[in-house]
């Protein structure tokens, strides 16, 4: 493993499967009465969030605490884009406090990359979502969830599995990271979006693309719906929310065309009624709540492996 986790594309298949299998061991902890391990005792993990994201922040916080790390939450008011304290000064402050890992969420694409390569901090940097670039731990938890349901939690378990990712691909860091990671794991990814929400140059991505949801989902083993932000409508990417839902929303009628084993995923937060209807989100196919649980296990695995856990995470007694 590298020292930082900046892009899902940096992970080899061995890296990714090591994270998934480590997460599988760690996830069993969730069912134990005492959920804490001593693995990262004395280490400090800083959650540096320039964007509001309670979900991702508490997931990382829970992960670090279950590994006995000390956790500092640093919610930077605005980014330097809004003339607040600069990323550099914030980073130097954290370095002075002695962080072992910095988990960073930032509105600017590439901010974690800058943090890792600028020499401002010596700690490991984990990208917790940067602009419209990447969100690698989300992709890992998504892959982990699919792996449990579709791949028997075994190496190679996602080989040849068909995954449909649907929605605002253009602005989605989740889609970028998932496309890269799932390709590494051998799955076949199809991105589905209106042409206005497909990035330029998508032909070079290791994925298939489609504008037609109805032809893609009957063949899919997993359907991942992406959040569509309301402001995209003002951007003129599609005419109305209703038309979007009709063409690209997952409702009961479309759910009926899925194979029996197909799971429905969403990285959250959902806009119910927009990209997904309530009955689908709450159906037995939906693994949306489980994704959250898996998020903690995957982030534990990432922190553990990045911070130099050479011994098995579970079982080793101090």
């Amino acid at each position, binding site marked *: 493993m590298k020292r930082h986790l900046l892009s899902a594309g940096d992970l080899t298949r061995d890296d990714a499967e090591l994270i998934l299998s480590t997460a599988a061991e760690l996830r069993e902890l969730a069912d134990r009465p005492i959920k804490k391990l001593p693995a990262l005792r004395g280490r400090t993990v800083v959650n540096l969030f320039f964007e509001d994201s309670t979900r991702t922040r508490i997931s990382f916080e829970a992960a670090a605490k279950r590994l006995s790390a000390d956790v500092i939450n640093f919610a930077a008011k605005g*980014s330097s*884009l809004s003339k607040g304290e600069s*990323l550099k000064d914030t980073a130097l402050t954290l370095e002075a406090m002695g962080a072992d890992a910095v988990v960073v969420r930032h509105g600017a*694409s*590439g901010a974690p990359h800058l943090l890792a390569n600028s020499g401002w901090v010596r700690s490991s940097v984990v990208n917790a979502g940067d*602009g419209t*670039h990447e969100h690698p731990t989300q992709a890992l938890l998504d892959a982990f969830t699919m792996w449990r349901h579709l791949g028997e939690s075994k190496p190679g378990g996602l080989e040849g599995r068909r995954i449909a990712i649907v929605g605002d691909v253009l602005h989605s860091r989740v889609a970028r990271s998932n496309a890269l990671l799932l390709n590494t794991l051998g799955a076949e990814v199809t991105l589905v979006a209106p042409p206005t929400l497909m990035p*330029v140059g998508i032909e*070079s991505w290791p994925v298939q693309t489609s504008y037609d949801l109805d032809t893609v989902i009957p063949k899919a083993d997993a359907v991942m719906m992406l959040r569509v932000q309301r402001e995209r409508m003002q951007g003129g990417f599609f005419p109305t929310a209703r038309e979007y839902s009709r063409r690209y929303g997952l409702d009961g009628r479309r759910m009926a065309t899925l194979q029996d084993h197909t799971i429905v995923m969403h990285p959250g937060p959902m806009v119910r009624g927009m990209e997904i209807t309530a009955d689908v989100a709450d159906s037995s196919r939906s693994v949306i709540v489980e994704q959250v649980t898996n998020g903690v296990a995957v982030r534990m695995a990432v922190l553990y492996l990045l911070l130099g856990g050479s011994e098995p995470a579970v079982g080793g007694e101090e």
Partner: protein
Amino acid sequence: MSTTYLIKNVRVLGGEPTDLLLRDGVIADLGGRAASASERIETIDATGLIALPGLVDLHTHLREPGREDAETVETGTRAAAMGGFTAVHAMANTEPVADTAGVVEQVWRLGREAGFCDVYPVGAVTVGLQGEKLAELGAMADSAARVRVFSDDGKCVSDAVLMRRALEYVKAFDGVIAQHAQEPRLTEGAQMNEGELSGKLGLTGWPAVAEEAIIARDCLLAAHVGSRLHVCHVSTAGSVEIVRDAKRKGWDVTAEACPHHLILTDELAATYDPIYKVNPPLRTAADVEALRAGLADGTIDIVATDHAPHPHEDKDCEWAAAAFGMLGLETALSIVQATMVDPGLLDWAGVAERMSFAPARIGRVADHGRPIEVGEPANVVLYDPAARRTVDPTESASLSRNTPYRGMELPGRVVATFLRGRPTVLDGALV
């Protein structure tokens, strides 16, 4: 009396070695006849050096007034002299904007006081660069600064009617509109060239069409009203094609390319290092090739630096927060050598045309861009094409350090620059 300089064995425009005598601000002799024995003469052994007419930059940001933390007229013209320039056109996007006779005269006067090269202020086309109403172009033209080049550079005159009026209006004083071609709606929040890489990096794309659509429109407008148009920093293969077509039709259109667009590509954005953030953005290798070909065949008339100094903090941050622009004056000639001369696309006479004669013609500058002949103003640069140097930002004469060539080895070195017979640079150092 000023010193007379005898420059021995210099290759004028890369030709056969000869001697050049600079006396009283003019080229007094060419071809080796001895100067009179009585005068004080400094002799320069210029064996191996090339003499070019003093370079003329049609596109420089000197930042004064307003951003003296980035550059001043004095530091910017020092950098210009180090790069072999004897005249620069100072862009109007200062604070306050150079949109009145008062501001352009201030910049002009600061240039005269600094004395490192002549400064020709560019006037804003619209009040405050706001793109809403014409600035007093006539007042700037009639001022002591004698403005002939007008530009809202940094912003595009996107309103078609306003652009038409500007093109028409400056005909009264033989002015030219230098357009920053960037369709604003197509480039909202744009960060880098739109293509494969922008999609992967999650940086908002700046599509080639946003430049090309404006250039096409402006060429049609200029033809329609019979005005002359200058296109700033052409960056795409499509733009080159449009300008080529306009010239073929006989329209009075000129265009510039920047050194960085001749050598760097958008791949550098993958570093997320905003030292490579510039507007228009670095494009693809195919665009670089097309620009070089266009510069070679004359479709692109000139090289202009778009020297854009920024203080360290405006580049030492995340990409989206960083300022657009890079330094260019001190490296321009080396980049042109590396990309055009060394590969055989342009000879030194061609370099003189693209970096001195043509920009002076476009800017209607009388005393620069003159041939190296007896009786002409002694604006001359001596250049050693055999030298190699590694770019060290801390050595820059500019107040800023944002060069994208840090650590790169570049060919060539400016040995001396003469402004009206007086050296501003001698032995590679400012005088």
